[in-house]
């Protein structure tokens, strides 16, 4: 059986053994990965993975199993187990599958890696790092190309095929000088091609250069309320903190700080957040949601107003609210009207937050964490890299206190963010 035939066989088997509604997804992945460990290109890895996910709904009761052995005997046995699991569960009218949409095939090149070019780009980056930043140790690089074939069908007639491939480069580094050690830092870049050396991608070269500066840090003295300029690399944490309140679980359990905020102001008017899983603006993409809907791009926050939650089919049916047209991710924030230089020059007292080491905010939005790889700013000038400094505030208040957004943005291939200055956060030294 070919891949599609396996999937159709699995669906028919589920229906035959008692499922009333079914969802079947077959994913095949091939990954080629080059690894650097402690400054040496040390591992070349090739992996093939397969996953068949089977879901059955019977009388509004649902069960799911995923497996990676695709012979008929195993599928037959698993289909029976899925149906038994569904029968054992509790009825919930929110359990459902996507309605029929036009059959579609999605393609995103490249489909195969250029292994020689991968090796060449990696060697080139390692040579660059060793030559330009001798005190900086490349602790780890994971550089891979993943090609994916995914087939999605359900018993309502949904039928999607996705074929895609993408390169992902993640580098982690630390500087060392005698007994001095810097904080580690890391940066990732996702790309459809290898046309550009990684030293010229995103903000990688700047972050590498700063690592050795961070061998000599100072502590911020005392505690003050000041400005925090969050960099594009660090912004993903805060976007994650905001958007985690918009998904099924916090809306269903009514623990989201934004539960009653749909259509209302939750951020300063200058803030616009988009999810672009389909657009070519972001290299990373996804075409179909896990529920089985063709994905669309969306604006989640427009001029500071919350335009949509990120509810899946279950969450939407459970809460009576609208299902989102995507699952979030592939984030983009609109650029602002100030240059980064102007933002720094206008800062009286604060920090540039380059990496945030903290936990998820509390249910009420309170957060605190350590400012890593960060810099103290006073009277419009960057003064020194800092250590043992904590940042704290409330996420809800913070989003309403955006002071400036930079014209410049960094497109990492999985998000595209500017620098944003927030005012009124608490910064405390030892």
């Amino acid at each position, binding site marked *: 059986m070919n891949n599609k035939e396996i999937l159709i066989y699995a669906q028919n088997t589920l229906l035959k053994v008692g499922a009333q509604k079914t969802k079947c997804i077959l994913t095949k992945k091939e990954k080629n990965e080059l690894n650097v460990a402690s400054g040496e290109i*040390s591992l070349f890895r090739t992996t093939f993975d397969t996953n068949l996910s089977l879901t059955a709904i019977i009388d509004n009761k649902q069960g799911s199993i995923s497996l990676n052995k695709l012979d008929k005997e195993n599928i037959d046995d698993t289909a029976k187990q899925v149906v038994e699991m569904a029968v054992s569960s509790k009825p919930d009218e929110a359990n459902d599958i996507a309605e029929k949409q036009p059959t579609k095939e999605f393609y995103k090149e490249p489909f195969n890696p250029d292994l020689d070019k991968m090796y060449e780009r990696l060697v080139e980056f390692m040579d660059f790092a060793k030559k330009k930043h001798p005190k900086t140790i490349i602790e780890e690089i994971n550089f891979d190309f993943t090609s994916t074939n995914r087939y999605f069908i359900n018993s309502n007639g949904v039928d999607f095929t996705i074929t895609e491939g993408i390169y992902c480069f993640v580098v982690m580094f630390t500087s060392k000088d005698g007994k001095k050690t810097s904080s580690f830092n890391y940066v990732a870049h996702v790309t459809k091609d290898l046309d550009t050396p990684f030293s010229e991608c995103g903000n990688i070269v700047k972050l590498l250069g700063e690592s050795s500066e961070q061998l000599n840090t100072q502590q911020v003295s005392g505690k003050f309320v000041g400005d925090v300029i969050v960099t594009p690399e660090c912004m993903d944490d805060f976007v994650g903190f905001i958007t985690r309140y918009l998904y099924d679980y916090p809306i269903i359990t009514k623990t989201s700080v934004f539960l009653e905020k749909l259509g209302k102001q939750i951020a300063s008017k200058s803030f616009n957040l988009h999810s672009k899983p389909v657009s070519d603006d972001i290299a990373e993409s996804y075409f179909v949601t896990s529920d089985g809907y063709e994905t669309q791009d969306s604006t989640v926050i427009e001029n500071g107003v919350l335009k949509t939650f990120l509810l899946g089919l279950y969450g939407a049916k459970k809460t009576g609210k609208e299902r989102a047209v995507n699952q979030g991710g592939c984030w983009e924030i609109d650029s602002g009207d100030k240059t980064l230089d102007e933002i720094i020059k206008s800062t009286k007292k604060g920090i540039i937050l380059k990496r945030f080491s903290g936990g998820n905010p509390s249910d009420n939005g309170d957060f605190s964490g350590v400012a890593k790889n960060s810099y103290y700013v006073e009277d419009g000038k960057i003064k020194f890299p800092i250590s043992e400094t904590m940042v704290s505030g409330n996420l809800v208040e913070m989003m309403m206190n955006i002071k400036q957004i930079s014209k410049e943005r960094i497109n990492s291939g999985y998000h595209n963010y500017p620098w944003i200055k927030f005012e009124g956060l608490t910064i405390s030294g030892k």
Partner: protein
Amino acid sequence: MIIKDLKKFAKYFTEYTELRMQENRNIRLTMVNGDMMGNSRSSNSGISARVYKDGSWGFASNADISDEAIINVISSATENAKFLSSRENLQKGELPKTNAMDSKDFSTKKPRKSQKEMIDFLNVIDAHIVKEFPKLSSRTIVIGNLDMEKKLFTSDGAESYSMIPRTTLYVVMTVIKDDQPFELYEVYGWLGQFEDTFDKPEVLFPKLKKQYEHLINKSEGVYPVSGMHDCILDADLAGILAHEAIGHTTEGDIVKGGSVAGDYLGEKVASEMVTLVDFAHTAFGKQCPVPVYVDDEGTKAEDAVIIEDGILKKFMHNKETALHFGHEVTGNARAYGFYDEPLVRMRNTAIMPGKSKLEDMIASIDNGYYLMKSSNGQADSTSEFMFGVVLGYEIKNGKLGKAIKDTTISGVAFDMLKTITMISDDMAWSCGGMCGKKQMIPVGMGGPAIKCKVNIGGK
């Protein structure tokens, strides 16, 4: 899992080779406010080979475990190693030879419970929570099980089989106070499949009551005052301190990558009260939460005494880092899935108990905090750490005061360890730890209560 004789593939080995067949099986049942929001199982199995040639590694894996696929995986991993070694020519020399032989199976001997019986178990817990704790606005109960079954054969002659299961029950309670939600979670569980870990739901009722009382106290609690304070870190936080802030900095690959611990071997890094061990499988005469008898390179897993009486004694190693540093291998090479290469990973990391009583420790603090439960933790190559704290109490004049709201603590571990002045004479393991370092992997973390100075974050 289909268990094959891996020895018969030895004739296809041309270099140092590890051949591993593995299946991970998961169960996840999620009940939110009485509704089954998740009811799923998964199994993921396959074969991998890792080959070492002149300092370079090649790795390949496939879900297909036919003889032909296994031969192809060995060949592909060998070709990958040759591809790199011909270009990199690292010439690192031979890896340490180890050939441990062992077989450990922690599968239940009881009749297996059906999915329905496990859902019924959740129903009983849920009904009890609804009846006894009416102030809750929301409740979530999750059963999670992971069985890791591995068969390993290496060109050094190591041969092992293991089936290590772990089952947890995760309970989240939420209460609304003054229009604000407050949440507290707890993880119950241990080594073993569901049948061996959770017998009767009633056994959990007293623990759920305690969790609820802490949550109510927290909802009526105060913000901690930020800054340096005398604190008692209870077992949960001592465990995460041992794992995140110290353990990671002493993993051989992290040391090689520039960790500050590399400069401290043989030096005093902590109060002389502190001894910290990464246990392989047995501690204090009992099974650890994540026992490892033979690691995924075929090395017999031994306890690694990292800090002894305040002195940094040892790093944790795989074969490659042991070769680099000229140290003994410790059996810390572990991989999560069949498609993953082994990395230097901790197993069961704990600070050893001391001689003090917890009540005396609390009585010794005039103004500080008793911090009981963490949400997460991160650490740095400098040993600077951060832990989220989701449960704690003030200490005022030697007595526990009001509960505190969520906060974060931070410090530099190798400085903070020197501020320890008391360690309790008991200890507890946390059972649900998953460590992320390229791959996720189950770990055990544990400790006694420790009295020290840490920086508390907040407004």
